[in-house]
């Protein structure tokens, strides 16, 4: 027998029906139902299949805590996996499907796993990964172990992000939370209250304590109305706080947005103080087959009757531990449900005589039935014999699990309280307090006084009102029954969602796992959507008994965000998706590049890799461009080059600190190459320094390092050398057209820049300012290709114009545009390095041929002392060398190792490698142990599974005499 709708009762809108489907079949519910309550009302018992063993599972708990009713909600692009049916309000047209069930929830082939439990034990993955043929099993196991499906289509839902600030943030709108909010607001604080349920009121809406009484419910309704109408309280229902960060920064998801066309809103909230009033949920009793559909927690059972007007079954057995089930018993009586027996594990000593059909000192040993409970076997706690009782429902009241996940996320500490058999908050790291059932209170009176105290204390902590005195609270006294020893441990489930049993925990202890955190990872305990909300304390209790430690010594599990599942869409709210994820930086001349067939790559900027002519490959195009530069002239867009101006009386002195080389001797109009080191003496960046005037310098940084160099300069200026100067980033102010090649001078002359371009008056490593067609231009004669080369800087507004203009001027000389790939070939032919590509975090100047510090430089510079360490002078350091392969057509793989000996040892690695179209052979740069001294030696390079023979050579492959450069 399954559940059904009661004739009357509940808070659902009985006049408003809602149509929805579950596993393809149509059902009708009422407005105010959750998917779970509506399915129970329709007689559905089996909601899904379990994760590992594919056992039938039904409704067990409520809200975010339910482990068994995970649903796939929606279809197509809108589908979301793994949402508990207890958290889904039914709406017209809702489509829900079970997860983990194939081919159907009623007949699931995976249930065969239930038979093979002995194989699928704790640590199954770790053990089976050691099998030689894991690859054979993996696809099958992965398919079987799925948890819902991710949509294949792009998400069509819309998300928004919002920021909120308040004096006091209350989490949970139950009795304690509402009173806390009201008290804080009364003291003058600006209050926000967030409730994950669709309505405020919490358990007070349906659990009215032992003193069943309409008045309490009316009081709560009045309180909700008062809070709603209070001018300094903002109440957000359907809003789940999912994470708690430093300085009272909390993240919540609002699923009931008042904004048109927004499905979910991500809220970032900063609160002065926080009140946690998340309540508690009933945890499971742990006995054989305690996971069967029909076994339900007492609080979920009462909520079904009083909130949704739904009975979970017709004949129930209640399993309790003292007085915990009184509310469920009252609810069953109200609904006219037959109580077959109340199985009470306590001996009854000291309690009131009860005139109900109570079996004192008894426990349920096992539940019978597969897709629905058919009965239970009851045994005395001490002694022999057993009784079998027929029933369709087992209501369990084992003890409360206070919801303290967010409190522990905040840094709060818990301590085990023997009397109430629960972990209670003892100290907090932030401005936060816990009240109500989260704080272990067990009566409405206690919840009210605790809530009022928390609200007043929170308000006082941020300057509103006086600090209140701490109230006396009552807490339930519990003698916990952590698990039923008479039951078979193999089917006694501690974590129903992860299919973790008592025997799994016992196995992990036998295998010497001691920390609860290690046991968690080994058994997957509490690692599902439920995140230990009800299984956490249950497991601590079981481990406590199995290991003979007190629960306090077993310790609690560290809770991490999110508290309950969050859609990825919500986390990417604020349009941080697709093309809007990160801004795309385009060069000023982007259109010009496009027009010339540029193929772009994102290097922080979208930069042309090569210019494709009539279907060329990248290699073909790059080779053509690189040959054209050496033969005639090429045009390159160097705009992303880092450009910083340093100006002030101390500018030269500062640059002397920043660069390993001397910059104070640089003459106006001249340029010097420099290396920036870090304090370890390793290369940080390289680039040229231009002396514009005695107190004004322009420095260039590698394109990819521009941002880091800017921060670097600021840090040293502000923290170490507060000299008289200013630093200005002008990277994006200037567009750079780089003209390189033997005919570059003719092109520059044709542009008529207004100064003498002859080799004598404008030599290599010098600078001139001029005008090109009236546009101010800064021209640097520097080279990254070994050819005569001019970097023409104009205002970025003229970025497209200058490319076009240079191209026009270069037509006569055979000018071609070239991209990054050709640039790389040209610089590698010359042995010019890229810092971080041809160097690593150990590379010092000497290793690449710069024997700093020079004798004439007296001032300190960053990293100078490190260059004096003995290790910096070792002849075995990794040094930059060239590698020429024996077969000129073999191009080595970047990252390939230079090896020696047997077994082979790495003595270096390839950092850059190209086929040189100008030399007609492969070229490679490498970092090699003692490489300089090894010049001329034959080496083996292990490249892509093959040994390639080569020779160590000078890293400069082309124009060693630098005749072209200075021409």
């Amino acid at each position: 027998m399954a559940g059904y709708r009661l004739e009357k009762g509940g808070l659902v809108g009985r006049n408003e029906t809602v149509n929805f489907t579950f596993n393809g079949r149509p059902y009708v519910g009422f407005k105010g139902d959750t998917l779970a309550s509506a399915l129970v009302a329709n007689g559905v018992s089996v909601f899904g299949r379990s994760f590992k063993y594919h056992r039938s599972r039904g409704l067990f708990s409520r809200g975010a805590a339910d482990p068994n009713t995970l649903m796939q909600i929606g279809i197509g692009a809108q589908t979301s996996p793994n949402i508990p049916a207890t958290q889904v309000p039914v709406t017209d047209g809702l489509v829900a499907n079970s997860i983990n069930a194939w081919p159907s929830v009623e007949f699931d082939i995976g249930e065969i796993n239930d038979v093979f439990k002995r194989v699928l034990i704790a640590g199954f993955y770790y053990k089976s990964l050691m099998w030689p043929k894991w690859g054979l099993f993996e696809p099958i196991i992965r398919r079987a172990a799925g948890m819902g499906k991710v949509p294949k289509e792009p998400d069509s839902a819309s998300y928004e992000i919002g920021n909120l600030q308040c004096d006091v943030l209350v989490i949970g709108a139950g009795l304690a939370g509402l009173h806390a909010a009201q008290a804080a607001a009364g003291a003058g604080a600006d209050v926000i209250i967030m409730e994950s349920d669709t309505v405020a009121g919490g358990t007070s809406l349906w659990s009215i304590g032992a003193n069943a009484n309409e008045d309490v419910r009316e009081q709560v309704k009045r309180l909700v109305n008062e809070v709603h109408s209070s001018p300094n309280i903002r109440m957000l229902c359907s809003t789940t706080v999912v994470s708690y960060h430093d300085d009272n920064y909390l993240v919540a998801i609002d699923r009931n947005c008042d904004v048109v066309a927004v499905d979910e809103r991500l809220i970032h909230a900063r609160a002065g103080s926080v009140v946690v009033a998340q309540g508690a949920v009933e945890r499971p009793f742990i006995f054989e087959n305690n996971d069967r559909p029909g076994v339900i927690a007492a609080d979920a059972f009462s909520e079904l009757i009083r909130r949704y007007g739904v009975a979970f079954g017709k004949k129930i057995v209640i399993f309790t531990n003292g007085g915990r089930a009184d509310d469920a018993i009252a609810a069953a009586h109200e609904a006219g449900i037959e109580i077959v027996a109340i199985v009470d594990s306590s001996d009854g000593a000291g309690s009131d005589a009860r005139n109900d059909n109570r079996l004192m000192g008894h426990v349920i040993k096992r539940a019978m039935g597969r897709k629905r409970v058919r009965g239970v076997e009851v045994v005395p706690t001490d002694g022999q014999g057993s009784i079998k009782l027929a029933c369709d429902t087992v209501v369990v009241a084992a003890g409360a699990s206070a919801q303290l996940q967010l409190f522990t996320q905040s840094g709060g500490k818990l301590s085990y309280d023997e009397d109430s058999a629960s972990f209670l908050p003892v100290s907090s790291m932030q401005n936060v307090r816990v009240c109500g059932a989260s704080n272990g209170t067990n009566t409405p009176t206690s919840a009210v006084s605790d809530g009022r105290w928390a609200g007043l204390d929170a308000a006082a902590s941020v300057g509103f009102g006086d600090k209140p005195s701490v109230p006396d609270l009552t807490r339930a006294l519990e003698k916990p029954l952590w698990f039923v020893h008479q039951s078979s441990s193999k089917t006694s489930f501690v974590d129903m969602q992860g299919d973790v049993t008592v025997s799994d925990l016992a196995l992990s202890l036998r295998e010497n796992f001691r920390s609860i955190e290690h046991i968690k990872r080994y058994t997957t305990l509490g690692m599902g959507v439920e995140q230990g909300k009800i299984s956490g304390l249950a497991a601590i209790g079981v481990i406590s008994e199995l290991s003979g430690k007190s629960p306090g010594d077993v310790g609690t599990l560290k809770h991490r965000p999110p508290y309950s599942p969050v859609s990825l869409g919500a986390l990417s709210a604020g349009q941080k998706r697709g093309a809007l994820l990160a801004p795309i930086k385009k060069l000023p001349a982007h259109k010009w590049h496009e027009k010339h067939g540029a193929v772009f790559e994102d290097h922080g900027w979208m930069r042309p890799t090569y210019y494709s002519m009539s279907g060329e490959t990248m290699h073909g195009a790059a080779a053509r461009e690189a040959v054209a530069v050496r033969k005639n002239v090429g045009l390159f867009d160097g705009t992303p080059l880092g450009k910083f101006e340093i100006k002030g009386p101390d500018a030269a002195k500062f640059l002397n600190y920043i660069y390993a080389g001397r910059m104070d001797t640089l003459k106006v109009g001249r340029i010097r190459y420099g290396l920036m080191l870090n304090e370890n003496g390793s290369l940080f960046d390289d680039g040229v320094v231009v002396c514009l005037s005695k107190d004004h310098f322009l420095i260039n940084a590698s394109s990819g390092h521009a941002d880091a160099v800017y921060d670097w300069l600021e840090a040293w200026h502000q923290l170490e050398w507060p000299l008289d100067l200013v630093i200005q980033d002008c990277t994006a102010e200037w567009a750079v057209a780089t003209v390189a090649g033997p005919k570059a001078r003719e092109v520059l002359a044709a542009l008529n820049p207004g100064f003498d371009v002859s080799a004598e008056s404008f030599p290599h490593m010098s600078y001139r300012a001029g005008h090109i067609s009236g546009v101010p231009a800064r021209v640097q004669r520097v080279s990254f290709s070994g050819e005569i080369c001019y970097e023409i800087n104009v205002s970025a507004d003229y970025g497209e114009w200058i490319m076009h203009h240079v191209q026009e001027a270069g037509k006569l000389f055979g000018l071609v545009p070239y991209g990054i790939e050709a640039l790389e070939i040209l610089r590698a032919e010359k042995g010019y390095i890229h810092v971080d590509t041809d160097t690593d975090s150990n590379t010092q100047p000497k290793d690449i041929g710069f024997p700093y510090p020079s004798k004439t430089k007296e001032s300190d510079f960053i990293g100078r002392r490190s260059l004096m360490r003995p290790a910096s002078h070792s002849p075995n350091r990794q040094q930059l060398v060239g590698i020429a392969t024996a077969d000129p057509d073999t191009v080595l793989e970047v990252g390939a190792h230079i090896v020696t000996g047997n077994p082979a040892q790495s003595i270096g690695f390839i950092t850059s490698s190209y086929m040189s179209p100008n030399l007609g052979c492969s070229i490679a740069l490498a970092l090699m142990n003692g490489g300089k001294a090894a010049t001329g030696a034959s080496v083996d390079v292990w490249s892509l599974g093959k040994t390639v023979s080569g020779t160590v050579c000078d890293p400069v492959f082309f124009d060693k005499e630098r005749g072209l450069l200075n021409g």
Partner: protein
Amino acid sequence: MLKIDCPWCGSRNEDEFSNGGESHLVRPEPPTSVTEDEWANYLFYPTNTKGPSKETWFHKYGCRQWFNVTRNTATHEILNVYRIGENPPEENS
């Protein structure tokens, strides 16, 4: 998400800042007279305090100014904020 009181811009979220490690570090010089131990101590041996720690922070996505923060590394509580070149507040009085 720490709330950091930039001495130039006021209270802003942590994600606008970056941490630069311990402050009041004295860089030994001149290099020719700095011993290996002194240099190693400067480079590799931060105090790594558990508890109140004096740090430099950089308001990267703001005023781009560096400043000092005293932060409890165990609780993340920020105890005070002061400018570069200033003494920590408790040492002023």
